[in-house]
Each structure stands twice: as C-alpha cells, then as structure tokens.
C-alpha cells in the first residue's frame, strides 16, 4: 500500500516546506467530516510518529498514519490550478463519491 504525488505536487510541497523553514515532509490524514463522510487533511510533518508509514515520491517524504492508509491507498496527490485558484487535488481509487472541490469523499 502506498500513496504518491505528481511532480507538480512535489514541487509545491518542497516550496511550502522551504517557506516554513522546517519539516521533513507532508502528512496526509483522513478525518470524518465533509458532505461525503470523509475529508483529507494535510499538515507539515516535523518528525514521523510511531504509527506513521512513510513513503517517498518524487523526492518528497509523505507520512500516513496506519489507520488512514486503507482509505487512501493508491491515492495520487496533484497540484492543480482551476481558474484563479490553485490547490492540492486527490485522486483516490477508493473513493466512491466526491463532493465540491474534492476535499470530501465517501468510500
């Protein structure tokens, strides 16, 4: 099981970490909320937690807690520009429905 990022997402993660000045990578988590039941949560990771699984993709480190991984296994994170807005976009093969901007999903 793993998750990955596109080159554009990797470049954005590197940029965000550089602006922040510290951090080893990006933690991707799943929380229960949003219209479709689950929502993605992103945060800077300063160090891996004991329950984290670590993946490297396009040169950046991604951390996912073991409990969240089955719901996002195979997910690819992209950075997309839509009109005047830009942000991370999740392509999650486990999601049966997504909602709005894609931050919420059902499995």
């Amino acid at each position: 099981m793993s998750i990955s990022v596109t080159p554009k997402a990797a470049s954005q993660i590197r940029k965000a970490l550089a602006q922040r000045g510290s951090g080893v990578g990006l933690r991707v988590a799943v929380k229960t909320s949003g219209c479709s039941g689950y929502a993605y949560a992103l945060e800077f990771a300063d160090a891996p937690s004991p329950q984290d699984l670590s993946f490297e993709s396009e040169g950046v480190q991604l951390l996912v807690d073991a409990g969240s991984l089955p719901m996002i296994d195979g997910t690819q994170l992209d950075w997309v520009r839509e009109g005047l807005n830009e942000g991370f976009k999740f392509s999650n093969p486990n999601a049966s429905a997504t909602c709005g901007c894609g931050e919420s999903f059902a499995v």
Partner: protein
Amino acid sequence: MSSCQSQGQSGASCTPSLPASGLPMPTLAEGAEPMQISDAVVSKVSQMLAEEGDPALCLRIFVTGGGCSGFQYGFAFDDARKDDDIRVERGPIAVLVDAMSLQYLMGAQIDYEDKLEGARFVIRNPNASSTCGCGSSFSV
C-alpha cells in the same frame, strides 16, 4: 471549480449540513458597500494583474447553478464591464458583479486564503444557508 460528482451507486450524495431556511435578502445601510473586499484580495489581485501585465483588468465574481448545494461561485479576470454590472473599487483593484449574481452576494465578504492545502478566493456569504466542502458551493 468542479461540481458535486456522485459517482457511485451508494447514494452518497452531498447533503447540505443545514436545511435551506429562505432567509430574506439583507438590506444595506446608506452608503454601505455591497461587498467587503479584504486586504488579502487586494494584494493578491494586484500581484496577479502585475503578472498579467494588464492593470486595467477587473476581478469578476459570479454565481452559477451547480455544486452540491445548488449554487457555486466563480472567479475570473475581465476587461469588459457589462450593462448590468456593479463595480466595486478597493484601492488599486476593481471587482465586477452582474446583477443576477449580486442578488446572492449582497453583504458578502470576499477573501483570499493561502494555506498549505491551496490558495483560493473565498466568499463568506450571509445569504447562504449552507455551504459544501471547501465552500465553493452554497444554497440559499
């Protein structure tokens, strides 16, 4: 902005978290602006116009049908003012809103958020009875 895509047979559609309440349109005090535009919007739009090399462009904000909650917001740059547009100026930038969209945006706060998840224009809308996901869709 993408709309609500319910792709499965599970019936997991995007149900607004609050029922539509049919709130009356707010009325504006004498001399009040129809919308509040934040400093972050002024700063970001100024930067984008400098990148475009065209300081005459306006930020157009519009409302279309769609999204999980029935309506969604759109943002674009426009150099042409239409007959039914209102124009709100704030420092070096100008915002255009057509009359139909204005009905839904009266009294709204326009802001720009730059966060880890992404950078986007957001609308805090007193007319919306519920919003969905990232706030790109709303109902009245």
